[in-house]
């Protein structure tokens, strides 16, 4: 053991030196590339003198006017092109459908491979602080199973780019023009990301202990930094198309690249996608753990995968809880940018999609809660909270029904014809936001309560003020429920729209207060608490299905909301600047969107299966055939 320890640092040290020199090389190389990019002038300098040669006394050769004219033309402001439907290449199938599938697949895997290194880094850090090797092994395993995802992301990203250039050449030409050199930076970041990724993953065991661990953690941080930069850059294209900035009314670029990128929706989308990616990534690796758990017979393995599934679910649900708040910010910014766009999303045709969203979020919350409740069988101290679970389940189901029912009631054929994209004038009030807001906030609170009692189930508080703390905690919950219902009912139905919208902010704040109070009170109350034994692997098999429901619902939800995000632009490529005159410039019916979303979800499922299968391949080894020695070699 001592020997290996003494070998490791030197081996790792050499490795680090190599790393450093490679990095330096890379930086120099890039700097060179950057200089070569501006090398046009120097080339002209070399060639120009020859053109100046002339006989003495002769008039100077007239400068060719054409090139000057071309240059002038190039320098002229370039407005967004106005296209007719003939300008769109027709390949026989819907161009939008092709781009839709490719973009969504790229986004799924992009989200996955951005999120996994993020919480892997956190888990690794936890492992360093707790000195518990299990964390480190789990983090490594998470990386292993998502490694193929990077290639898949790149494959779909490349296909998407090709499809866009083939099918929407004018739009892409315009976007290339607007974003200009940013594309090169974007491409360059991929080299960084791949570099850090492979060094981070393959260097895991080489840089495992002591100071080298910190080198490894730094590599992880750089991997995340390059990944996140890629994400926010790509986000700026999407948000530019939704809410263009840095261009004038005709689409002529008037600002610098920073002004183009920093549109009003950029940061809300960045935050929303960042949080959602983590939830999504957690859910997907949770399915892996659940599958392994169900397939394993060995109790040690079952315990390991149970714990892995629990951690994944923890990551998914915890990052899911703040997601509505980020979504609220995004929606508020959309309204602030364009009232019309906001209403197209929330009050027009697309409003119906939020019912599907309700079903999906309901599924996610119920599955997450169900998993937590089932998981309480791991601890002996969970008996104390059994009664509370029934209440939570009841609240969740009732809220879920409130969320969905009023809408589905208005679905008779005659009413559909009356719709025209708006709510019914009698039942409408039940279907609009106040009722939904109450339900959503109560569901979030209930989910947090599940969380809290799960966390408490294996502990007994020893502090003297525990009864007081509990009384305060109960009061926090009761007061929050009262406040949320009051805000929703009073301002939602008895005052004007402005107060209605404003009150939902107060509702959200109330929910946040519950979460913050819960975390603070519990962390103080259960300091030095008596810990009851818990038994990993002691969980019913059916609980694992919740871990499958989560990624399916997340995937579907992501595809759905992506469709809404893209559709609020209606018949514009770049909202208010570049019209979409392609044959696909309408918002498709929900059923069609549902088909597309299911298609991409199933495709994603297959690709993820492949990804997990490849990961499991690396762990298995074919035994050397015994007979092969005789006949196999002939």
């Amino acid at each position, binding site marked *: 053991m001592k020997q290996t320890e003494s070998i490791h640092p030197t081996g790792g040290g050499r490795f680090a030196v190599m790393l450093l020199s490679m990095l330096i090389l890379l930086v120099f190389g890039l700097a060179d590339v950057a200089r070569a990019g501006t090398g046009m002038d120097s080339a002209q300098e070399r060639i120009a003198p020859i053109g100046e040669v002339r006989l003495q006394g002769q008039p100077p050769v007239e400068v060719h006017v054409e090139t000057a004219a071309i240059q002038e033309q190039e320098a002229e402001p370039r407005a967004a092109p*106005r296209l*007719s439907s003939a300008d769109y290449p027709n390949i026989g199938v819907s161009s939008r459908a092709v781009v839709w599938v490719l973009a969504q697949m790229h986004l799924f895997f992009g989200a996955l491979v951005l999120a996994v290194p993020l919480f892997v880094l956190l888990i690794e850090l936890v492992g360093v602080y707790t000195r518990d090797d299990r964390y480190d092994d789990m983090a490594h395993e998470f990386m292993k199973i998502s490694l193929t995802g990077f290639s898949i992301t790149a494959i779909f990203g490349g296909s998407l780019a090709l499809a866009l250039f083939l099918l929407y050449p004018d739009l892409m030409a315009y976007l290339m023009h607007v974003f200009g050199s940013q594309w090169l930076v974007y491409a360059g970041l991929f080299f960084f990301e791949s570099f850090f990724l492979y060094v981070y993953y393959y260097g895991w065991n080489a840089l495992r202990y002591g100071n080298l661990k910190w080198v490894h953690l730094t590599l992880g941080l750089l991997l995340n930094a390059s990944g996140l930069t890629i994400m926010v850059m790509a986000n700026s294209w999407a948000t530019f198309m939704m809410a263009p900035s840095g261009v004038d*009314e005709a689409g002529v670029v008037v600002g610098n690249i920073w002004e183009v990128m920093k549109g009003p929706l950029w940061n809300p989308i960045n935050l929303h996608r960042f949080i959602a990616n983590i939830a999504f990534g957690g859910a997907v690796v949770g*399915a892996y753990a659940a*599958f392994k758990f*169900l*397939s394993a017979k060995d109790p040690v393995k079952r315990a390991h995968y149970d714990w892995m599934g629990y951690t994944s679910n923890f990551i998914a649900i915890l990052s899911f809880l703040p997601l509505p708040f980020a979504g609220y910010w995004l929606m508020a910014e959309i309204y602030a940018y*364009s*009232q*019309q766009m906001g*209403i197209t999303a929330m*009050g*027009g*045709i*697309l409003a*119906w999609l939020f*019912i*599907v969203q309700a*079903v*999906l979020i309901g*599924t996610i919350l119920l599955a997450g809660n169900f998993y937590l409740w089932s998981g309480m069988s791991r601890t002996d101290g969970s008996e104390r909270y059994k009664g509370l679970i029934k209440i939570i389940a009841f609240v969740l189901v009732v809220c879920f029904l409130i969320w969905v029912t009023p809408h*589905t009631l208005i*679905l008779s054929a005659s009413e*559909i014809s009356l*719709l*025209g*994209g*708006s*709510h019914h*004038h009698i039942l*409408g*009030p039940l279907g609009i936001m106040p009722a939904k807001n109450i339900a959503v906030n109560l569901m979030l609170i209930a989910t947090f309560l599940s969380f809290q009692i799960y966390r408490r189930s294996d502990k007994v508080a020893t502090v003297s003020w525990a009864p007081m703390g509990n009384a305060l905690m109960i009061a926090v919950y009761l007061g929050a429920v009262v406040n949320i219902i009051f805000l929703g009912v009073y301002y939602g139905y008895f005052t004007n*729209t402005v107060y209605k919208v*404003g009150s939902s902010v107060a509702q959200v704040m109330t929910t946040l207060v519950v979460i913050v109070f819960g975390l603070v009170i519990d962390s103080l109350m259960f300091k030095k608490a008596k810990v009851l034994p818990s038994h990993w692997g002691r969980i019913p098999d059916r609980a694992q*299905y919740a871990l*499958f*429901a989560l990624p*399916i*619902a997340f995937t*579907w939800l992501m595809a759905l909301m992506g469709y809404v995000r893209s*559709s609020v632009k*209606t*018949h*514009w490529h770049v*909202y*208010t*600047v570049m019209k*979409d005159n392609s044959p696909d410039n*309408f*918002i498709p*019916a*929900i*059923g069609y*969107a*549902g*088909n597309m*979303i*299911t298609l991409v979800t*199933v495709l994603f*499922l297959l690709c993820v299966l492949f990804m997990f299968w490849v990961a499991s391949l690396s762990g298995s080894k074919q035994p050397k055939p015994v007979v092969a020695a005789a006949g196999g070699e002939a």
Partner: protein
Amino acid sequence: MSVLFKTLAFSLGLTLLFTLVTYLLPQVKGEAPVEKEVDLGSLTMESFIALGEEIFHNKGTCTLCHQPAPLGRAPDIAGEDMVALANKHLADERYQGDAKNAEEYIRESLLHPGKYVVAGWGKKGSNDTESPMPMVDKPPIQLTPIEVDAVIAWLQAKDGGEVTVALPAAEAAAEVASAVAGDEGRKAPAPAATAEEALTKYACASCHAMDSRDTLVGPSLLDVGLRLSKAQLRQSIVDPNAVVAEGFPPAMPSDFASKMTVSELEMIVNYLAEKKG
């Protein structure tokens, strides 16, 4: 293997369940606005008002916000008498705009919604000094001046008020037509406004001398008012081969009947009937 089968079946089943939900919802398509051609030559006030109503409900996207009480995010325009309301707001001491009458007020509130914000409907936090209404003459709504006029006409007419907006004049129509033609490149030319314009448009003078007795391809029209009655003039334009003037080939185009608007034909006929040398 059975684990794989069970989990896959579960996942696919759940996916299909979500798909089913989308099928239970109304299948509404969001069509992009279709360019609509309005024949201004034959436009009546009724159809102009109807156009305004259609714009209000569709292209203008007004109903996204202007809805009755619990749903509306802006005053319920369809449900209130806008002329009376406009006069009420004009009398309000908070009113700082330039409008003098209901038409001007409505136009101002359409094009410059921030001039006067109805109490309670201002942008959140602006204390009714800023309007949340988008610019209707800018993208993405982009109403043309004629469309704005049509909306005003409808707003005035819908509660029995007097319509003070004039029907679109020919110059405006020509402007719009050329703008649209530049935009789309395949619009019919605008109807002519005067007899002279109509004569130029249909290139009558390339065959008929108007101001001399010269004979070009067809007979001179200098004194045609003396030779033919209005009915005969009309017939010789609509159906030129019915009676061909003596000594002339039947060369006059016979498709004017399908090309000219009624008003253009009448203008030309009246003009020619006055030509008496």
